[in-house]
């Protein structure tokens, strides 16, 4: 129930999670006449029926703006919208509901921090630290900020095993950087970074810390306070919510010191002739009419995940991920990138003699959906010496049989292009 802390009466086991597959309408359609093996969860997760119903119900019964309408449907919309905020705050360990800003996604949230905090507080000559495994969305805003503000842009390299170079990080901390921007889980290598440890060290060196939780929120427990971040960004559609949702978690006091990003309705207090004053937080950062239905859907996604239990989900994902690596390792000609000690079920690989696009195309024909390309991580792929990779990324609803189909598909593609079995 929105607004109340929830303890599920029964923890979901592996069988329950596999059965949860029927919660996802899109998985039931079949692909190219075969059962749909969806292995691209790092790109986006399928959306459960519970989330779809919540969104449809809003449009059918409420369909009003939030915070403004004085009639009952408006009050109802506002109640459900703010209940979603409260749910997200609890889910991600935010200090309070005022510390959750809704944005269209993690990308917008990073840009918001780069603009609202970075442009105001990063002085010329200061250092901004990112890592070579960052998604473009947590790389480009800092690259531009550094250029605009005359700051030093430093990139922590990735080691051959897919972990971050700790010595380089330590070296960067020595002159007290302004910011460290770090991904919790790599969308290419599946590496789970030691965020709490690194955030602690970064803050000890006087830096602010931004954690990109796009690949971790909804897949393993993520707690803003325990991670020790100043800013945490997440993406709704990567945690079984709708596209167009996501946000920034930060201390309300931190948000108050920042400049707004977009200006317009909802985020303003007094509009004067020459000057205007802003609303409090988080409203200051939520200009315009929000995607109310989608945010309510996000709230439903949080409830859905809490009912299934994040620990159970994380365990299942870990088991599936290990099975995926084992399955791929057995295949001739397959090279897996990254081998971090702690790893999400995101595996990028190359197959000798096959271009990722051709492999993905053949797999599509066999009802298996994977991703191919630069995976929005050109600096990382360049460091690995490749232009493109194929990536399989799993959700808790995937099955071992689907991994077998991936392996068979790879074999079939190799034979089609004349590389034996």
């Amino acid at each position, binding site marked *: 129930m929105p607004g109340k802390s929830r303890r599920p009466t029964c923890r979901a086991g592996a069988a329950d999670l596999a059965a949860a597959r029927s919660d996802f309408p899109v998985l039931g359609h079949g692909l*190219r006449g075969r059962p749909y093996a969806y292995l691209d969860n790092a790109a986006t997760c399928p959306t459960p029926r519970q989330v779809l119903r919540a969104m449809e119900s809003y449009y059918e019964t409420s369909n009003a703006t939030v915070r403004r309408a004085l009639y009952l449907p408006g009050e109802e919309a506002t109640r459900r919208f703010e209940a979603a905020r409260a749910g997200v705050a609890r889910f991600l360990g935010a200090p309070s509901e005022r510390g959750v800003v809704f944005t269209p996604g993690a990308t917008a949230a990073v840009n918001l921090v780069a603009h609202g905090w970075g442009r105001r507080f990063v002085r010329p000559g200061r250092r901004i630290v990112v890592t070579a495994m960052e998604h473009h969305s947590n790389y480009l805003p800092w690259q531009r900020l550094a250029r605009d503000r005359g700051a030093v842009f430093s990139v922590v390299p990735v080691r051959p095993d897919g972990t971050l170079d700790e010595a380089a990080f330590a070296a960067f901390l020595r002159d007290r950087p302004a910011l460290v921007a770090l991904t919790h889980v790599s969308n290419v290598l599946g590496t789970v970074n030691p965020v709490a440890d690194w955030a602690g060290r970064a803050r000890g060196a006087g830096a602010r810390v931004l954690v990109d939780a796009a690949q971790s929120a909804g897949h393993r427990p993520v707690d803003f306070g325990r991670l020790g971040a100043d800013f945490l960004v997440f993406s709704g559609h990567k945690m079984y919510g709708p596209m167009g949702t996501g946000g920034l978690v930060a201390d309300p006091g931190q948000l108050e010191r920042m400049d707004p990003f977009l200006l317009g309705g909802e985020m303003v207090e007094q509009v004067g002739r020459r000057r205007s004053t802003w609303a409090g937080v988080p409203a200051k950062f939520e200009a315009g009419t929000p995607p109310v239905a989608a945010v309510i859907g996000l709230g439903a996604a949080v409830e859905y995940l809490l009912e299934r239990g994040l620990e159970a989900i994380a365990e299942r994902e870990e088991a599936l991920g290990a099975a995926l690596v084992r399955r791929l390792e057995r295949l001739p000609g397959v090279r897996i990138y990254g081998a971090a000690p702690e790893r999400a079920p995101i595996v990028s690989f190359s197959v000798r003699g096959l*271009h*990722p*696009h*051709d492999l993905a*195309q*053949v797999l*599509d*024909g066999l009802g298996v959906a994977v991703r*191919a*390309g*630069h995976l929005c991580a050109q600096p990382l792929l360049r460091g690995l010496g*490749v*232009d*493109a990779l194929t990536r399989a990324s799993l959700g808790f609803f995937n099955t071992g049989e689907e991994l077998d189909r991936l392996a068979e598909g790879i074999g079939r593609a190799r034979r*089609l*292009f*004349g590389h034996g079995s």
Partner: protein
Amino acid sequence: MDPEALYQEVLLDHAKRPRNREPLRGEEVLAEGKNPLCGDSIRLALSLDGGRVGRVRYDGKGCALSIASASLMSEAARGRTAEELRALAARVARRLHGDADAAGEDLPEEIRALEGVRQFPMRAHCVTMCWRALSRALSRAGGASRG
């Protein structure tokens, strides 16, 4: 269409045994093409004899479709005039990138194997990269011979 039908015999043959593909020297290269999304790249060289293309040669790397397209293109180019080839390149682009109304007729028989890509719009860029490079190479070659 089943993706395995996309990679039917003609395309696979050209992908595995590309015609006219050989390492080029830097100074021969008239045009380059690159697909930043996946790193496919091509470099083209060609000669014009009395306004007609002699031989198109190319090097680079890419997916099977981009290689097959370049191979088919290199064979279709031989003996055609620069204007004919520019028109053909534009026709390939319209046919594969454009909407159904502007698509026009089927591609000529020598490159009809590329028709299958119409059902896979995400791969259109793989196929058209070499044709765009060809248009640029023709402009360069034409300019040089007038020089």
